[in-house]
C-alpha cells in the first residue's frame, strides 16, 4: 500500500481541478461532495498506510518512495519523492483528518456563499500543497508545498475580496510570509552549498560529521528558523495571523490554526538533526518561542472579536511548540501540534457555529447567554477550552504540561516561569471568551438576532473533534515509563539533544499539579471578572490605563512596523519610481532620443530636395578631393 503514497496528495489535486474547472456548472451538493470526498480518500489511504507502517519492525521505519526525477542538472538531483516516517505520518494523519472534518463542516457553513465552488477548489489545493509539504523527502519539494500553502492562504484570507480589509489582510499575510520564505530559501541554499544534496536523509547523515556549533550549520538553521517564524507566526513576523481572521471561519480553523501555521514547527522537528548541532540557534528558537507565547497571550486578553481571541491564542500556542523545539523537546512540540490541531480547530469551528447562529456577529460584547440556544456548540467549545487551558485529562493537558516540564529540566527556569504565566493567561482569556459568549446576560437584540444551533454537517465535525480533544492526549501519557507511545513512535525521525534523564515520578506529578493549579487560578480569575462581578474588568482597566492601552492596541506593533518598515519602503519605492525611474532611467532614454531629434531637426535643412543643390555639393566635394590630391 505504501507504493500508492503518491495518491495521497493526488486526490485533493483532482478535486481541485474538477471543482476549479467545472465547479461553476455543478450543483453545490456535488461540489461539496467532491471536495470532501477527495480529502476523505486521502485520509483513508493515509490511515491504511499508517496501519501497514505499524507492522514494520522498529529499525526500518523510514521508507522513501520515488515517483520520478524532477530536476537533474549536473551533480544536482531533486526527486519528486515521498518520505514515509513516523513524523510525516503523524503530520499526514493530522492534516488529512482535520481537513476532512473541516471540509464537511464547510459544506454547511458556506452553503449560502456565491463563491462556493471557488472556496472548495482553493481548499482542496491547500490540502494538496500541505500534504506535499509534510511528505516531501527533500527540501526543494518541501519548499514547493511551503509556497503553495502560502498562496492558498493568501487566496482564502482574501476570499471575500470585495471587502477592502479582507484583501488587505491577504496581501499582508503574503508579504510577511515572503520575508520568512526568503530566509527558508537562503537556508536551503546554504544546505545545498555545504552538503551538496537536498535530500533529508543524506543531509542529516552528512551533518552528523560536523562539530557541534559549527558556523555553517548555525547560519543554515537560523535561516530556516526565519522561515519558521514567518509561517508559524512567531515574533517578529506574527502580525499577519490576527489579520488573517478576515477569511471564512473554517479557513481560519484549517489553515490558520490546525495545519498551515504548524508547518514551521514541523520543519523545526524535521530538521532537528541540524538544530541539535547549533546551540546558538536553539537558544534563539527557545527565546523567540517563549516571548511569542507570552506576548501573544497578553494580547489575547483584551480582544473582543471572538476570532481574534482565538488568533492570538494560536500565536501563543505556536510559541509553546517553538519553545519546546528550542529546548530540544521536539517530540513535545509535535505532540502539542497534534493536540492543538484538534482543540484549536474545534474552537474555531465552534466560534464559526456561533457566528453562523448569530448572523455574522463576531463581537463578544453583543453575545452572552448562548448556552441554551446552541448546546452542542457550547459543550464542544467547553471541551476545547478545557483542553487548551490544560485541564486533566483533556488533550492539551498532556502536551502543554510536557512542554512546561522540559522547559524547566532541559531549558532554563526563565523559560518555564514565563511559559507558566502564559498558561495562566491562556486559561484566563479562554474562559473569558466562554463566559462572554455562552454565559451571563443576553446582550443581543432579540428582534434582529435569533440564535440557533448549527446544522448536522457542522455539528458532526464538532463532536468528532471534541472526542479527539478529550482523549487525543492519552497517546502521550507522561508519568508511567513506556506508556508514552507517541515519543517511542516518533523516535526514528527526531534527533535528541542528549540522552533522556530519568526524573522521579513524584517530581513529574508535582509539576502536573502545579500547572493544573495555575490553569485553575486563570479560570477562577475569569469567573470572578466576567460572571461574578461584571463591573470588575472596567475597574481594573481604570486602575491601569496605560497597561490596558498597550495591551488593547497590541503593543502598537502594527503601528511600529508601519512606521519603521512599511512607510520607509513606500517612500523608498516612491523615490525609486519618481526619482530614479522617471528621472534617471526615463530621463536617459528620453534625453538621448531628444538630442537625436534636435540634431536631426537642424540637419534636415540640408535636404532641400533640389537636384541642383545636390549637384553643387557633388561639385564642391570633387573640388575638395581634387585640390587635396593635387596640393598634397
Amino acid at each position: 500500500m505504501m507504493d500508492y503514497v503518491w495518491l495521497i496528495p493526488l486526490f485533493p489535486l483532482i478535486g481541485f481541478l474538477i471543482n476549479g474547472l467545472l465547479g461553476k456548472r455543478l450543483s453545490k451538493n456535488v461540489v461539496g461532495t467532491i471536495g470532501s470526498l477527495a480529502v476523505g480518500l486521502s485520509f483513508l489511504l493515509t490511515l491504511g498506510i499508517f496501519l501497514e507502517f505499524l507492522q514494520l519492525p522498529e529499525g526500518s521505519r523510514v521508507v522513501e518512495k520515488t515517483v520520478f526525477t524532477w530536476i537533474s542538472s549536473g551533480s544536482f538531483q531533486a526527486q519528486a519523492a515521498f518520505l514515509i516516517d513516523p513524523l510525516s505520518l503523524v503530520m499526514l494523519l493530522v492534516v488529512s483528518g482535520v481537513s476532512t472534518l473541516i471540509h464537511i463542516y464547510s459544506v454547511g457553513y458556506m452553503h449560502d456563499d456565491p463563491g462556493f465552488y471557488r472556496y472548495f477548489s482553493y481548499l482542496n489545493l491547500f490540502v494538496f500543497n500541505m500534504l506535499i509539504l509534510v511528505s516531501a523527502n527533500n527540501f526543494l519539494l518541501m519548499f514547493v508545498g511551503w509556497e503553495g500553502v502560502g498562496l492558498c492562504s493568501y487566496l482564502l484570507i482574501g476570499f471575500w475580496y470585495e471587502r477592502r480589509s479582507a484583501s488587505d489582510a491577504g496581501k499582508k499575510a503574503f508579504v510577511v510570509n515572503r520575508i520568512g520564505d526568503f530566509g527558508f530559501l537562503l537556508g536551503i541554499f546554504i544546505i545545498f552549498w555545504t552538503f551538496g544534496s537536498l535530500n533529508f536523509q543524506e543531509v542529516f547523515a552528512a551533518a552528523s560529521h560536523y562539530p557541534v556549533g559549527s558556523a555553517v550549520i548555525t547560519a543554515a538553521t537560523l535561516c530556516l528558523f526565519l522561515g519558521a517564524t514567518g509561517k508559524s507566526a512567531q515574533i517578529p513576523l506574527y502580525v499577519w495571523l490576527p489579520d488573517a481572521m478576515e477569511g471564512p471561519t473554517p479557513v481560519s480553523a484549517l489553515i490558520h490554526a490546525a495545519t498551515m501555521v504548524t508547518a514551521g514547527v514541523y520543519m523545526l522537528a524535521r530538521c532537528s538533526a541540524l538544530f541539535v548541532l547549533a546551540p546558538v540557534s536553539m537558544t534563539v528558537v527557545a527565546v523567540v518561542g517563549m516571548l511569542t507565547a507570552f506576548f501573544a497571550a497578553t494580547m489575547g486578553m483584551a480582544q473582543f472579536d471572538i476570532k481574534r481571541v482565538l488568533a492570538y491564542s494560536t500565536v501563543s500556542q505556536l510559541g509553546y511548540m517553538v519553545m519546546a523545539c528550542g529546548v530540544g523537546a521536539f517530540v513535545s512540540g509535535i505532540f502539542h501540534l497534534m493536540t492543538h490541531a484538534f482543540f484549536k480547530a474545534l474552537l474555531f469551528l465552534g466560534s464559526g457555529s456561533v457566528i453562523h447562529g448569530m448572523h455574522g456577529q463576531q463581537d463578544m460584547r453583543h453575545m452572552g447567554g448562548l448556552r441554551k440556544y446552541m448546546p452542542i456548540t457550547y459543550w464542544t467549545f467547553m471541551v476545547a477550552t478545557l483542553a487548551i487551558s490544560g485541564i486533566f485529562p483533556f488533550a492539551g493537558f498532556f502536551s502543554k504540561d510536557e512542554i512546561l516540564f522540559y522547559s524547566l529540566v532541559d531549558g532554563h527556569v526563565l523559560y518555564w516561569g514565563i511559559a507558566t504565566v502564559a498558561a495562566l493567561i491562556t486559561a484566563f482569556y479562554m474562559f473569558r471568551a466562554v463566559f462572554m459568549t455562552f454565559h451571563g446576560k443576553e446582550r443581543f437584540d432579540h428582534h434582529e438576532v435569533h440564535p440557533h444551533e448549527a446544522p448536522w454537517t457542522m455539528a458532526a465535525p464538532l463532536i468528532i473533534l471534541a472526542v479527539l480533544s478529550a482523549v487525543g492526549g492519552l497517546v502521550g501519557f507522561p508519568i508511567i515509563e513506556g506508556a508514552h507511545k507517541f515519543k517511542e513512535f516518533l523516535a526514528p525521525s527526531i534527533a535528541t539533544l542528549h540522552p533522556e534523564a530519568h526524573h522521579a515520578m513524584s517530581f513529574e506529578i508535582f509539576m502536573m499539579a502545579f500547572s493544573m493549579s495555575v490553569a485553575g487560578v486563570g479560570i477562577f480569575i475569569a469567573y470572578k471578572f466576567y460572571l461574578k462581578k461584571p463591573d470588575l474588568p472596567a475597574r481594573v482597566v481604570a486602575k491601569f490605563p496605560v497597561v490596558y492601552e498597550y495591551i488593547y492596541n497590541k503593543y502598537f506593533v502594527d503601528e511600529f512596523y508601519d512606521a519603521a518598515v512599511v512607510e520607509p519602503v513606500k517612500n523608498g519605492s516612491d523615490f525609486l519610481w519618481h526619482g530614479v525611474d522617471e528621472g534617471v532611467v526615463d530621463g536617459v532614454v528620453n534625453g538621448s532620443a531628444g538630442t537625436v531629434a534636435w540634431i536631426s531637426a537642424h540637419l534636415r535643412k540640408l535636404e532641400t530636395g533640389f537636384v541642383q543643390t545636390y549637384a553643387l555639393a557633388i561639385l564642391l566635394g570633387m573640388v575638395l578631393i581634387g585640390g587635396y590630391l593635387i596640393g598634397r
Partner: protein
Amino acid sequence: MAVPLSYYLALSVALFALGVIGVIIRRNAIVIFMSIEMMLNAVNLAFIGFADYFKAVDGQMFVFFVLTVAAAEVAVGLALIVAIFRNRGSIYVDDLNILRW
C-alpha cells in the same frame, strides 16, 4: 599645322566649366540637360586633343563610346522630362522638390 595641346585643353576646360555652371544655376530641365551634353562634349574634345598629341587612336575610340552613351542618355532623359511634364505641368526644377522631408 598642328594645334598645340594646350589650346585643346583650354577650350575643353572652358566648355566643361560652362556646362557645370549651367547645370547648377539654370532652372529649365531641358537647358540643364543641354549643359550636361556640353560637359560630355568638353570631355570628348580633351580625348581628341590627347589622341592627336600622343598619335594614338585610343582617345578617338573613347569618343565614339561616349557619343553612343550620350545618344542613349538623351533618349532616356528626354523621355523622363516629357513624363515629368505630363505629370506635373512643369519642367522647372524649382517645382520638383517632392523628395524633400
